[in-house]
């Protein structure tokens, strides 16, 4: 790893697991169906990549690890254990490290979760998506709501204290009532953390094709706005705090890994299609699992601290202006913490106003940001139109 410009020796680590049993209809992530036979070699490649990076960067402290996908729960506990061991061997894995893993509600049980818990995973994120049968079908999810209920129960039984659920709203033909029911059902499960995503129709997804063909209506953005507002109210009632535009948690249960992103601090990305940010440059790893495995076979160095599997075309040097812009764009997503004035000044050697005087003034006038003594945050009315604010800084 290039020494990050903040002089900090604490990083986060993202591990991408690009395998799924079926593809969801909205999904354009880097994931593959039917490549399960590669998993063993893929895990070996991951371990090799982690070892190389740790060695080169002189074993920085890792304070969060995140297994994302894809479907990380396709890994067996020994495979996860092997990866975590490579991290512990090549980095300084802090004792309090947050270690999250995304799991699919189907195909998991208490034994599986218990094993994960034992090897050190301490946070689970379950892709629940919807309690509505029709919406789950539309999404082509391979599980039912009962599976979600069962998975949460198993996680608790296995001793997980920090369980998060992902939900999606704003699906075509989804009513506000159906969404309210999903929220009710979800709250009954007493999660510690919730990520609520407005459905985006991405080019390349099956849904995009259906909508293009006219066999499915496009989502109603106004209704999605209503759903968002409804959820905000409902979750506050239930004791949640909205700490990011799409994320809610009970006190003390924010996701430290994701906060690293929003504070624009460095993270290493390993695994096919993973993205990383060293503090000075952004990069991604080759997308194809087979190519990834090939690139990591019998290599023993990581030139310039970059993975041998890095996608050369993806490397982007982040200059000061861009770093500042991204710090604003990302930081303002944190609704409570916002952009910390002191951290900003330490990092860039000037106040936010010194760099963005006009922008701050205009946004303040428009009632889209609060400028406080210690930080700058979005106002309540800006949450749904955040782009109008972020745009001013890029």
């Amino acid at each position, binding site marked *: 790893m290039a020494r990050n410009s903040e002089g900090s020796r604490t990083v986060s680590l*993202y591990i991408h697991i690009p395998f799924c049993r079926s593809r969801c209809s909205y999904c354009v992530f880097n994931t593959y169906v039917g490549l399960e036979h590669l998993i063993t070699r893929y895990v070996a490649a991951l371990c090799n990549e982690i070892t190389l990076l740790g060695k080169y960067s002189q074993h920085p402290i890792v304070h969060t690890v995140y297994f994302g996908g894809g479907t990380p729960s396709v890994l067996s506990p020994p495979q996860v254990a092997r990866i975590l061991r490579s991290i512990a061997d090549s980095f300084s894995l802090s004792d309090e490290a947050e270690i999250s893993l995304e799991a699919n509600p189907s195909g998991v049980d208490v034994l599986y979760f218990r094993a994960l818990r034992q090897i050190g995973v301490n946070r689970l994120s379950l892709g629940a998506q919807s309690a509505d049968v029709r919406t789950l079908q539309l999404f082509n999810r391979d599980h039912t709501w009962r599976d979600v209920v069962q998975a949460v129960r198993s996680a608790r039984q296995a001793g997980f204290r920090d369980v998060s659920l992902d939900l999606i709203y704003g699906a075509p033909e989804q009513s506000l009532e159906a969404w309210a029911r999903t929220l009710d059902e979800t709250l009954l499960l007493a999660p510690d953390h919730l990520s609520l*995503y*407005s459905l*985006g129709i991405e080019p390349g997804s099956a849904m995009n094709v259906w909508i293009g063909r006219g066999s499915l209506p496009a989502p109603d*953005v*106004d209704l*999605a*706005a209503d759903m*968002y507002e409804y959820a905000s109210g409902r979750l506050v009632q239930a004791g949640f705090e909205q700490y990011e*535009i*799409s994320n809610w948690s009970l006190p003390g249960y924010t996701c430290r890994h*994701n906060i*690293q*992103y929003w504070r624009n601090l460095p*993270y290493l*990305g390993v695994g096919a299609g*993973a*993205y*990383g*940010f060293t503090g000075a440059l*952004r990069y*991604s790893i080759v997308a194809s699992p087979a190519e990834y495995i090939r690139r990591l076979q019998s290599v023993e160095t990581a030139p310039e601290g970059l993975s041998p599997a890095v996608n050369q075309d993806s490397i*982007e040097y982040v200059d000061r202006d*861009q770093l500042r*812009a*991204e710090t604003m*764009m*990302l930081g303002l*997503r944190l609704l409570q913490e916002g952009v910390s004035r002191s951290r900003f000044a330490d990092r860039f050697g000037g106040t936010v106003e010194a760099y963005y005087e006009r922008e701050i003034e205009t946004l303040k006038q428009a009632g889209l940001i609060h400028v406080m003594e210690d930080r700058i945050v979005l106002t309540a009315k800006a*949450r*749904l*139109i*955040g*782009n*109008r604010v*972020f*745009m*001013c800084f*890029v």
Partner: protein
Amino acid sequence: MEEKNIRNFCIIAHIDHGKSTLADRLLQLTGTISDRDMQEQILDDMELERERGVTIKASAVRMMYDAEDGRQYEINLIDTPGHVDFSYEVSRALLACEGAVLVVDASQGIEAQTLANLYMALEHDLEIIPVVNKIDLPAARPEEVAQELEDLLGVPAEDVIPVSAKTGDNVKAVLEAVVRQVPPPGGDPDAPTRALIFDSHYDSYKGVIAYVRVVDGVLSQKDTLKLMATGAQVDPIEIGVFSPGMLTTGILRAGDVGYVATGLKTVHECRVGDTLTTVRNAAAEPLPGYQQVKPMVFAGLYPVDNDDYDALRDALEKLQLNDASLVFQPETSQALNFGFRVGFLGLFHMEIVQERLEREYDLDILATAPSVEYEVVLRSGETITIDSPAELPDESVIEEIREPWMKIQVFTPQDFIGPIMELVTKKRGVYETMEYLDASRVMLTYRIPLAELIVDFYDRLKSISRGYASLDYQFDGYEPGDLVKLEVLVNQQPVDALALIVHREQAYHKGQKLVSKLKRLIPRQLFAVPIQAAVGKRVISRANVKALRKDVLAKCYGGDVTRKRKLLEKQKKGKKRLKMIGNVEVPQEAFMAVLRLDED
């Protein structure tokens, strides 16, 4: 070179019949361009011409040709545009020539601009060399087309030269015919110098570059030259010929076509149509110049960013040097601030000017809907001329509004007569005559208001005739019409730049279409925006652009930062191109919406 060994000719034709491609072959044949440097339609050197595959500017080029009679000839060729909007380019090229190669597409036959350009050439007494092109096409019917040309010109069909400009087949015969049939220039090399400026462009180092045809005497770099109309004197920076790039020769003699780099900075001192002479031995009489063309349509051009006003004026002035038909004057709009009222020869011309301003001068500009020039007779007896709906006085003081009518000729296979009739009637046109061109093709003549002609008439004609119909038109006269002003209010404010003058019977229909079109074009704002169309005080249509509720990236994690930043940058750029009208952001397309009212 002696005058008797010089030939000057231009290539004229209907659009796309292959003029520029034929020019390519002639340049190759004479070795003016090596095969290595050759590219398709090499004389179409403007970026826009290459992209669209259309000639916009006439270009001159000098070739040296060793003819079959054993002598070497200097041949000056001018390739001209075929689009009807650029016929002024053709007319100026004609004055620099003694002959014209008339090209006709062997699969299409004689079309509207074939005739229009031919008549222009005949008016200037040019020797016509008829050529049938594209004989390589499977659908080619060269004998029939040659017969059509015989009927038209009275030359025997067997004298019509069949060629394929694409394959190069028989193009040498064209040069031989030029050498044999086009008369040499016939000016007086010893008389006081007279050279006609038929075009120009601006070069930031060499100033105005005048394209000249020397009629009498000699233009030499050593002489101080004088422009006879403006009186401006210049010591030329450079004199030369197009080959096809600018090639210095230091001298141009009677009969030659070439250029003079004047060093002058503005169009006002060096007008197209002026005559160059020498100070030392000035000519007594200038050459007959050109008639300034009258623009047909007018539109407001405004910088998107108000600070670009001066830059836009500079750009228009520079462009005027390269486009002698362009006229403009300052205009103020309540909605759009400071800009210019610009006159164009047609909508295609308008589109090209707009694009050239944006590309060649890097300006973001906004055009209002095009309008024609109306004569308004006031109750007071006075008659005023307006070319913008915003200038129309209050109904109460108007006695009568007169609008320009055109005579049009539509060339079409007879299968499409029905739909064309229908289209013309819908556009308030009146049928006049029909003539058979041959067994299956006719020429229809109509009269139609110009205002209807400029709004998507041509596109619709093309589409209902599957591309087969062609069109030519001439101004016919002014006639009173039952016309009213259709006003558009955005967020309760009338927007002058969106107002239209329409026929009373169409007001309701157009108002509705326009409102629903604007509703789709105006992006949702942070508040609801009502849009209304009104005639006088009466609102005839309304719609609401709902307030924007949601505009935020739902997901943004480590993997997305670069992509998300780029999305935001793109969104920001898009917003910059919107124009603030009051507190409403309006896209440029909204101002042109009126052109596409019947589309969907």
